[in-house]
């Protein structure tokens, strides 16, 4: 948490005091949450344009007025990167949008990204006074974050955060996903000489190859990374740590600290009959072809199958991204096949809602047991086992149980398997001195993100298995703070 003194001093500023007096609390809390405008489902399900359109300045100010500027802003505790939420929201309320954007950048390397893809309902907004005490809809913190970041970008006046004087210490970052970018942003601010190594030909990790344009336009990722470049972070693409450059090479090149943010890029398959038929693929392959390689663009050399009857297996955000992508690529029938019920789905509520509006069918309590192909080896049918919910398991979720003998057969011409990812094995298999779990994750001290090798820190999915963008960013920030403390001898 930011210190209480700092938060109180910010809150005590004259403009904040005066702003609080302009509207009575009762009046603020009586207002209804502003709704984010969206592109109509019929139109958007055939285009790649962003679904959420963003708030207008008037809408943003109206929503900002709902925030009570609490003495004890509990919302901050729900944010993994501890954004000073009341400070940026009150700046929106008074119309100082660029100041609001600056406040975001004090702690977040990618505000335009987070405002779009964070599950705020489980983070900041779940800790809002409205949710906690009033039983009302929370202040739309995510939408306001997005508004401030977008306003700054569109204004052409992007501010570059202040950088400490260079200390000449070289730090290597493995992976340019959200964990690595957050870490790099915090370390460059502290004066380190930071280089990010990326295996692919483009930067951003899952922000680039995973999350589709209709949820997170690539231009926005580019611009946020560009700010890091302007701050002095160096980026090297097409470089695989462990293959192109070894751990020893990094040490020999004078890198004194390494942060590993190599993610969980290894797709899981179910190992059922027919999974290697043509047309059955991992969500990573499908989304990489479409998002990173732009395969739907006729000018792109990378092909992608455009299925007419597409099934996506799984119930997470990635499954929603894949099925909505398939719809946009022309699928007449696009289905989610999930072995539990909708209540247990890990996907964001908003994504499920958007998917349904776009005509996605949900086959919950169904689990594929085999795929069948035609004489050319192309998938043409899936056999699904009907399921029911049994007793809660150790995690508290009710376990899916097969209803013996109750199966159905559904015609498909494309199947996308989205049943989770495992940590990328490149680092565990090529680095020495790390402690690796049987799941392939890197063991760290949970407070400092330091590994068994004192010079190496790690965060994001390589530590957690598949998790969220913002948790990865939180890890990156935590690791930067701890590495700086270790290096400056605290």
């Amino acid at each position, binding site marked *: 948490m930011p210190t209480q003194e700092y938060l109180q001093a910010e809150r005590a500023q004259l403009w904040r005091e005066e702003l609080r007096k302009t509207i009575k609390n009762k009046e603020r809390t009586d207002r209804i949450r502003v709704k984010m405008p969206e592109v109509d489902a019929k139109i958007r399900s055939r285009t790649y344009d962003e679904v959420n359109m963003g708030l207008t300045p008037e809408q943003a100010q109206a929503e900002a007025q709902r925030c009570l500027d609490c003495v004890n802003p509990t919302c901050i505790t729900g944010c993994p990167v501890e954004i000073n939420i009341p400070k940026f929201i009150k700046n929106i309320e008074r119309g100082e949008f660029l100041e609001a954007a600056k406040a975001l950048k004090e702690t977040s390397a990618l505000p335009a990204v987070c405002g779009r893809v964070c599950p705020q309902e489980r983070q900041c907004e779940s800790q809002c006074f409205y949710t906690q005490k009033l039983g009302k809809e929370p202040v739309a913190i995510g939408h306001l974050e997005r508004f401030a970041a977008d306003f700054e970008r569109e204004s052409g006046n992007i501010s570059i955060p202040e950088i400490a004087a260079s200390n000449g210490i070289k730090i290597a970052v493995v992976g340019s996903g959200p964990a690595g970018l957050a870490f790099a942003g915090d370390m460059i601010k502290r004066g380190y000489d930071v280089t990010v190594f990326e295996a692919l030909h483009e930067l951003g990790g899952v922000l680039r190859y995973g999350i589709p344009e209709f949820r997170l336009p690539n231009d926005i990722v580019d611009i946020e990374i560009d700010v890091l470049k302007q701050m002095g972070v160096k980026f090297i693409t097409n470089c*695989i740590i462990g293959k192109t450059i070894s751990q020893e090479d990094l040490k020999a090149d004078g890198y004194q600290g390494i942060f590993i943010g190599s993610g969980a890029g290894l797709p899981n398959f179910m190992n059922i009959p027919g999974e*290697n038929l043509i047309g059955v693929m991992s969500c990573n*392959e499908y989304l990489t072809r479409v998002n990173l390689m732009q395969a739907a663009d006729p000018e792109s050399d990378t092909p992608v*199958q455009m299925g007419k009857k597409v099934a996506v297996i799984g119930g997470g955000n990635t499954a929603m991204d894949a099925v909505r992508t398939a719809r946009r690529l022309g699928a007449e029938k696009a289905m989610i096949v999930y072995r539990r019920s909708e209540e247990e789905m890990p996907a964001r509520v908003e994504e499920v809602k958007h998917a349904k509006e776009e005509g996605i069918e949900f086959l919950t309590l169904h689990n594929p047991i085999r795929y069948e192909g035609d004489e050319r080896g192309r998938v043409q049918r899936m056999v699904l086992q009907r399921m029911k919910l049994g007793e809660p398991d150790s995690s508290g979720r009710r376990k899916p149980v097969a209803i013996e003998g109750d199966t159905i057969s559904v015609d498909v011409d494309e199947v996308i398997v989205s049943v989770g990812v495992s940590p990328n094995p*490149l680092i565990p298999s090529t680095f020495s001195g790390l402690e690796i779990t049987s799941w392939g994750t890197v063991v760290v001290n949970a407070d400092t993100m330091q590994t068994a090798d004192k010079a190496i820190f790690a965060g994001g999915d390589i530590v957690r298995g598949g998790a969220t963008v913002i948790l990865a960013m939180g890890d990156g920030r935590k690791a930067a703070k701890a590495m700086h403390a270790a290096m400056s001898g605290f």
Partner: protein
Amino acid sequence: MNKIISKENFSDKVVKFEIEAPLIAKSRKAGHFVMVRVGKKGERVPYTIASSDPIKGTITLVIQRVGKSSEKVCQLEPGDYITDLVGPLGKATHIENFGTVLCAGGGVGVAPMLPIIEAMKNAGNKVITVLAARNKDLIILEDQVRKFSDEVIVMTDDGSYGQKGLITAGVEQVIQREPVNLCVTIGPAIMMKFVSELTKKYNVPTVASLNTIMVDGTGMCGACRVTVGGVTKFVCVDGPEFDAHQVDFDEMLMRLRAYN
């Protein structure tokens, strides 16, 4: 980075490039491959590294014109740059003194086999190489292969050079003649399938270097998956070399046709 230093046309179809890539040149071993992308709309395509010069900081790729992407690479000239080049990828070939090693290479597969022939020879093996192609013009790298082989047998489909016949005929005459401890085969999938079936009959352990469809080449998508011994493997990280007698070549041949 990744400037083309030299270009040599082996034939109308086959081009050899020497490319600046100091980091890859330093860390690559026999059997490793790279992913190549040409142009902003280009796709990522795998090519095995034929040789490298760590002092000059270059790697050599031998590329056959088979489609749009290989054609794009082959149109590049010395001084041009490869847009993206990443590697070395995959597992290196397992090299040791096996005794007698039979290397069976078809068409452009001879290029990725060359570093293996060299490494096997340097490890003290007796190396017998069978080179095969449709006709004389498509036999490549013969002089370099001879340099590191104790014996070279050339097979052409039309008999325009060496013996007339398929690669399997060359392989079979060696196996019938003398004990072979290991066979390494690289070439079109259908060729490797038949070599594998033949060596299985004679119980000669065989390694094949598989050339499946790939996207990233780093293990994050599974486009390259094959069934080996009943288990799904990713060619880009678990391979590209596998025990040929365990590979489901029919499934692999089927999957290669996914975008045809």
